[in-house]
């Protein structure tokens, strides 16, 4: 039996097409992926992300524990700030990628991938067993107590304060959620419930994620729909979430990231603080950074009209003595650009932006080129 989010009945009423996503029954689309994608790029979209996991780490030893378990430097976070980070194995393989927020001096909230909640929890338990100060902190999996929604798009800042009224009571103190800066999180009160609002997302647009007790999720969804409707807000499914993140070159666990790939190979070295002292995976990641890796994750765009690239397709070099050099891990038709785009792991020698490639699709090779991420950039505002 698939797990259901607190918004399941609302998705049904909206006649969403539901799919199995990591053991959860989730809306892949409501009216159409392209329409929902463009709503997020042009005005606003609302996503149910209640399947994602929430884990809390608290206590005087929490900072030290997490800084050793995660790749980014958690000591850089002031109260009310968050960062993208990774959970790695000793050999550098990625257990999960996640967002961690410092919600109090000695308290952290981690937002993890739905499909990795159990793997993360098991791995963190092993880290707890290895921690020198295991009495100094407490780790809690609160995934079943919380749901979350993401409201994303250039118009969102104009209506978020109408839906989530008033100033924050904790974390980053602001007079309204729209005053949060990127990666800041505030604790707000919504209809008596304590909720977190963070200015972050997975679409490349401005926007917020609201994390709240499951009972508050449906009222928050309705409040956002009501406040956002005049601005063009539309419910958006996981299909649009995937095309939006692919245009930005953001990784998705299970595609760009697995236990067999490292953050260095994935092009995420920026989120690995090799200079912060020891942490799990550091030896391997330090060596990879110094000596280089044999393959790299790249973003690419099809050169001409072609079928959309898909995960698993073979990547060939474009030179006359063409050889297979890698494999596509994410691919789709870009709704914003109108061409096929994707991400692939290719041999490092062939991983430079501008490199011509060919993607093998049903036995034929179609030209493509590596391009720096993001593949989509917001058009400059007209004066």
């Amino acid at each position: 039996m698939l797990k259901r989010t607190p918004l399941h009945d609302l998705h049904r009423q909206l006649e969403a097409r539901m799919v199995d996503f990591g053991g959860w029954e989730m809306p892949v689309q409501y009216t159409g992926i392209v329409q929902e994608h463009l709503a997020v790029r042009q005005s606003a979209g609302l996503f149910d992300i209640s399947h994602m996991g929430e884990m809390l780490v608290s206590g005087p030893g929490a900072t030290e524990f997490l800084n050793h378990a995660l790749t980014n430097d958690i000591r850089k976070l002031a109260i009310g700030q968050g960062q993208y980070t990774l959970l790695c194995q000793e050999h550098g393989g990625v257990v999960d990628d996640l967002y961690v927020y410092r919600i109090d001096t000695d308290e952290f909230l981690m937002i993890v991938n739905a499909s990795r909640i159990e793997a993360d929890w098991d791995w963190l338990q092993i880290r707890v067993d290895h921690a020198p100060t295991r009495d100094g902190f407490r780790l809690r999996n609160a995934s079943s107590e919380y749901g979350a929604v993401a409201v994303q798009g250039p118009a969102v800042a104009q209506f978020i304060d109408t839906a989530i009224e008033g100033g924050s009571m904790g974390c980053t103190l602001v007079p309204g959620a729209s005053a949060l800066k990127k990666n800041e999180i505030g604790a707000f009160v919504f209809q008596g419930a304590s909720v977190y609002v963070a200015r972050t997302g997975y679409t490349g647009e401005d926007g917020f994620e609201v994390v709240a007790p499951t009972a508050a999720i449906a009222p928050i969804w309705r409040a956002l729909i009501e406040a956002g409707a005049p601005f063009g807000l539309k419910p958006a499914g996981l299909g649009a979430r995937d095309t939006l993140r692919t245009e930005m070159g953001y990784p998705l666990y299970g595609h760009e990231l697995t236990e067999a790939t490292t953050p260095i190979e994935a092009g995420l070295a920026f989120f690995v603080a090799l200079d912060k002292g020891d942490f799990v995976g550091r030896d391997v990641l330090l060596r990879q950074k110094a000596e280089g890796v044999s393959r790299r994750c790249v973003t690419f765009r099809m050169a001409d009209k072609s079928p959309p690239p898909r995960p698993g397709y073979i990547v060939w070099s474009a030179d006359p003595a063409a050889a297979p050099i890698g494999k596509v891990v994410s691919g789709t038709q870009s709704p914003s650009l109108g061409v096929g785009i994707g991400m692939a792991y290719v041999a490092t020698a062939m991983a430079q932006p501008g490199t011509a490639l060919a993607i093998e699709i049903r036995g034929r090779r179609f030209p493509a080129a590596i391009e720096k991420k993001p593949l989509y950039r917001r058009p400059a505002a007209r004066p």
Partner: protein
Amino acid sequence: MSSIPADLKYAQSHEWVRLQGDIATIGISDHAQHELTDIVFVELPAVGRRIQAGEPCAVVESVKTASDVYAPLGGEVIEVNPNVSGNPGLANTDPYGSGWFFKIKVTNLDEAGALLDADAYRRHLGQEG
């Protein structure tokens, strides 16, 4: 409710057939285009190719997935629709008209007896639920 014109025949795999003599025009049903949504690429067979009933002979791709289109009848491909490969959205907006895929000269018209009429196709959709 999807549109199912009464003058066409249908395959269980959601292609439609318009038979005029031994020439069959083929496309995908309104139900199929609705299920696929946002069709972004259509790959058609080469003119002159001989295909057998049930053979995958075209590919239709949505944002999310690629799906095979099967030949409802055997024969030789005599014409393909350049408009639908140039503008794949036609398969969404006009699946029984300008969104047609290809035409074949049917080898054995008896095969048409295995196709569904509109009522049978409607029941088939009901069973798929």
